[in-house]
């Protein structure tokens, strides 16, 4: 469904060039959940933004059902992100002046969402009693659930989640994974980027990203020693 082929990305800063992704390839099947793990600065977020049609790679292609998403026009790319992808961020990135309902509704642009679907989704995420609350009045777990509702409301094909449980306790983390599992089980695909290599109950595969390349994991899901050519220090 979503794949990238030999994707490379280098940031050009005033202090020189920083290679972040070095020929990364990934194939995400329908109904599959892939966790990309690795230490901070290894290029996880860059990979997620590249897969999310937000950051054009210097080399390589990103394909969605066979179409290179970076050959689309700007409006096509906006539509693609709106209809096919759902983003979940570690810091939730909710809009502070919108209540729960509006924070979810703000994602709806190109399709009509029935009130009933909103209610069902928000009830499923136990937010039905918080509809008129603004993010500042919500707990961390509730904020992340709003962010998940926002990612799911357009019924996307792929969810890209950046450290979705990074700020959550165990109970809330389990709930997030449960929702993502349900999404996967209904045929959706999920990419989770996380600095942790363990405890990803949703994952079909765990890929370790180190120094801009995927490295193999040992039997305990720990990265095997790898020959590194170039250091990367920006995620």
């Amino acid at each position, binding site marked *: 469904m979503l794949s990238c082929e030999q994707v490379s990305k280098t940031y050009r800063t005033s202090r020189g060039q920083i290679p972040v992704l070095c020929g990364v390839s990934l194939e995400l099947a329908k109904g599959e959940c892939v966790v990309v793990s690795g230490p901070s600065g290894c290029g996880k*977020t*860059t990979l997620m*933004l590249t897969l*999310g049609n*937000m*950051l054009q790679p210097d080399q390589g292609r990103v394909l969605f059902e066979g179409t290179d998403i970076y050959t689309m026009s*700007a*409006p096509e790319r*906006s*539509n*693609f*992100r*709106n*209809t096919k*992808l759902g*983003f979940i*961020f570690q*810091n939730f*990135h909710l*809009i*502070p*002046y*919108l209540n729960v309902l*509006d924070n979810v*509704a*703000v*994602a*709806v*642009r*190109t399709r009509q969402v029935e009130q009933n679907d909103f209610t069902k989704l928000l009830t499923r995420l136990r937010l039905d009693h918080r509809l008129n609350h603004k993010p500042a009045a919500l707990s961390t777990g509730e904020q992340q659930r709003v962010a998940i509702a*926002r990612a799911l409301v357009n019924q996307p094909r792929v969810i890209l989640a950046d450290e979705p449980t990074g700020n959550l306790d165990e109970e809330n983390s389990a709930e997030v994974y449960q929702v993502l599992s349900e999404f996967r089980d209904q045929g959706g695909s999920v990419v989770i980027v996380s600095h942790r290599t363990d405890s990803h109950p949703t994952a079909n595969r765990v890929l370790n990203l180190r120094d801009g390349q995927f490295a193999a994991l040992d039997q305990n899901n720990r990265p095997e020693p790898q020959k590194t050519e170039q250091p990367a220090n*920006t*995620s």
Partner: protein
Amino acid sequence: MRIISLILKEITHRWPGFLLGAFGVAIAVAACQGISALHEAAQRETRRVQRDIGFNMRIIPREADPERFLIQGYSTETMPEEIIQRLVEHDTVAYNHLVATLQGEIELAGKPALLTGLSPTMFPAGKKKPPMSPTIKEETAHLGHRLAGRLGLKKGDTLTLAELPFEVVRVAPQSGSLDDLRVWVHLSDAQKVLGKAGQINEIQAIDCLCLTPDENPGELLRAEISKVAPEAQVALLSKIATARARQRRMMDSLAQTAVPAIIVAAALWVAVFAWINVRQRKLEIGVLRALGHPASTIASLILGKAFLLGLAGSAIGCLLGSWFVTSRVAEIFPVTGGKFQFEMNAMLVTLMAAPIIACLASCLAASLALVQDPAVVLREE
């Protein structure tokens, strides 16, 4: 979710910034409106005050002896009344407030008096202005102070001239000039009394030339009027004309300098607030882009807010400006201030211009929001 709803919710959330921005626009609009209104009021006052000084342009028959005209104060020769119609219909006019006049000496109670017949003020097409003097109705008379005393007449009495009755509607205050011995009547009545039907001996007017000091208004006016009315000549009272031109230039230059400066200052104020707002909303804009909102939505959010800020500011500014001008105009312009009225069209233009200028001022901030790479913002956060 509708863009306007998003804009209104953001304004409610960040109301101090919005209020400060709108306050700046309001002050600017109030100042511009105040200056424009006071400029208009000053011109009106000038016109009115100079009416008391007299018209600055006198068009008299060509055969009139200018020296005798100056000594006597009016021309004894006459010209056809229809000349005024030609002057009114002429399309490249540099004069306004035309009043046809017929004057002649008469005898009242055995002593001389001056009869002055005045037509209603006429204006060239598209140059209609409030008349500088009250229109004299037919069969009514205004009497000079000394003459009224001599005849023992007061307001409401009847004056008989050439066996025609005239109701005295006003006795002018003492002026210490020839006006104290004058009877003002309607032009047609003067023509009947003096037996000069269809004749006038002068057209009084005000020149509308906004000239630089090195230009000669007399030559320009004579050249123009000779084309339309070759049977007339022009006597320009240059002291009055120059004083009027100076006064008008002073007011014009004040308005022309101050208003653009205020607009630029207000635009900068709005631009700074818009820029700060975009910086504050960097992450929000990045998230909206990630959610698939196109550049047009982002631009609409920034420019829509600027439009509302301009609209709110201009509405408050119009009220402030109106209040200020209304409360002060009578004091500043004692002669005409009491009758001052706002031009509704100018207010509407101000009301619409401020939001448009606010949008233009926010274009840079909107561009900043559009060029901001959402990937960079989201990666940094």
